């Protein structure tokens, strides 16, 4: 690549790299310590009550994913907060994941935190990952109210709620969440989030937002959910 790279042209960044190279790092712990810790995470995750709900947000408000679980146990974070989302564990046993649509979503972090709740996910911004054929079983994993799975309604009207059941995710599949900022079409200026299942070993990702029906090509009304939020209602 021939374009100018601030990295190579910056003595400050080179000095930073050199400064840290001179700091002695802590001794790497034994691999067994890491895997033991990971196993304890798995045990806590499997003991959580399965279930999560996702609510589409109206203009200017947040997308809410509600996770029902026995959280608040020792070692399980009561609150995880980033600029783009927050997970809060409540005293009544429910947990909410709030996505802030005014901040760019942090896909890898959201994936990691969803994984803690037993939800394997592929989260992407500006793209959506899909499989061909679409895996079966979406309706058992994700349910919605009031309209049921399928195309969501625009921002006006009642907010849709989506519930995710981690225990119903078919083996070999993952939840694919694609988040788009729409710049053209009838919903330009709005944010779109699509939820589908993918074959974890065989999927492709496209940067083209699903158009008609808000679901990706190859996914029928029972195979996914699309949400529109943010922007201006009625536009």
């Amino acid at each position, binding site marked *: *690549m021939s374009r100018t*790279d*601030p*990295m190579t042209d*910056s003595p*400050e*960044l080179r*000095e*930073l*790299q050199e*400064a*840290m*190279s*001179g*700091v*002695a*790092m*802590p001794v*790497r*712990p034994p*691999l067994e*310590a*890491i*895997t033991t*810790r*990971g*196993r304890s*995470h*798995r045990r806590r*995750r499997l003991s959580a009550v399965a279930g999560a709900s996702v609510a589409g947000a109206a203009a200017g408000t947040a997308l809410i994913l509600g996770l029902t679980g026995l959280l608040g146990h020792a070692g399980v*974070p*009561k*609150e*995880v*907060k*980033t*600029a783009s989302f927050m997970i809060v564990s409540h005293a009544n046993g429910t947990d909410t994941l709030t996505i802030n649509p005014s901040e*760019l*979503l*942090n*896909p*890898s*972090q959201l*994936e*990691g*935190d969803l*994984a*803690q709740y037993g939800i*394997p996910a*592929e989260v*992407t*911004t*500006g793209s959506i990952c899909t499989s061909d054929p679409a895996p079966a079983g979406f309706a058992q994993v994700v349910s919605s109210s009031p309209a049921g799975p399928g195309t969501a309604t625009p921002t006006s009207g009642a907010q849709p709620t989506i519930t995710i059941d981690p225990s119903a995710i078919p083996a070999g599949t*993952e939840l694919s969440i694609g988040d788009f900022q729409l710049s053209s079409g009838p919903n330009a200026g709005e944010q779109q989030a699509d939820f589908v299942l993918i074959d*974890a070993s065989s999927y492709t990702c496209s940067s083209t937002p699903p158009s008609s029906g808000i679901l990706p090509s190859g996914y029928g009304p029972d195979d996914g959910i699309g949400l529109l939020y943010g922007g201006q209602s009625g536009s």
Partner: protein
Amino acid sequence: MSKDESGFAEFFQESWDPCVRAVAASTGDLLLAEEQVAEAFARAWTAWRKVSRHPAPRAWIVRTALNAGASWWRRRSRELPLDGHDVAAPSKGAAGLDTALLAAVRRLPGRQREVVVLRVFLDLDVEATARELGIAPGTVRAHLSRAVAALRSELAHANPTEADHVPH
């Protein structure tokens, strides 16, 4: 050991140092960085099938560690100020981390600091950094340029040259 397990073991062995270095540069706390990164590797182990396919697994570790640290601080209700940047003030004994340059890195806005850490310590190019953060490559370059300008300014104030003191 299965192929998956050996793959994780190799990744852990090769990535521990650079990941701790990246997190420590961002937080200024080597002991906390060690804890955060260990937690991130444990999480990666539970989701290794996914993390191993991530385009930049080390970046996954570092970002998970930094976010684990943010929640860790809130749970512990530490008194150290977070300065609105989700970064803890450096703890005592963080030898080598108390330089003016590293302090300046910790004062960068969160996104700029993130871009600097990914570029400098994980050797991610602009395109990979952009994909990791879900932003445009041009935005990465803009953040990097602003960060460099901020670091340069901070260092100039911390280490004024003789020219700044020429009597007139």
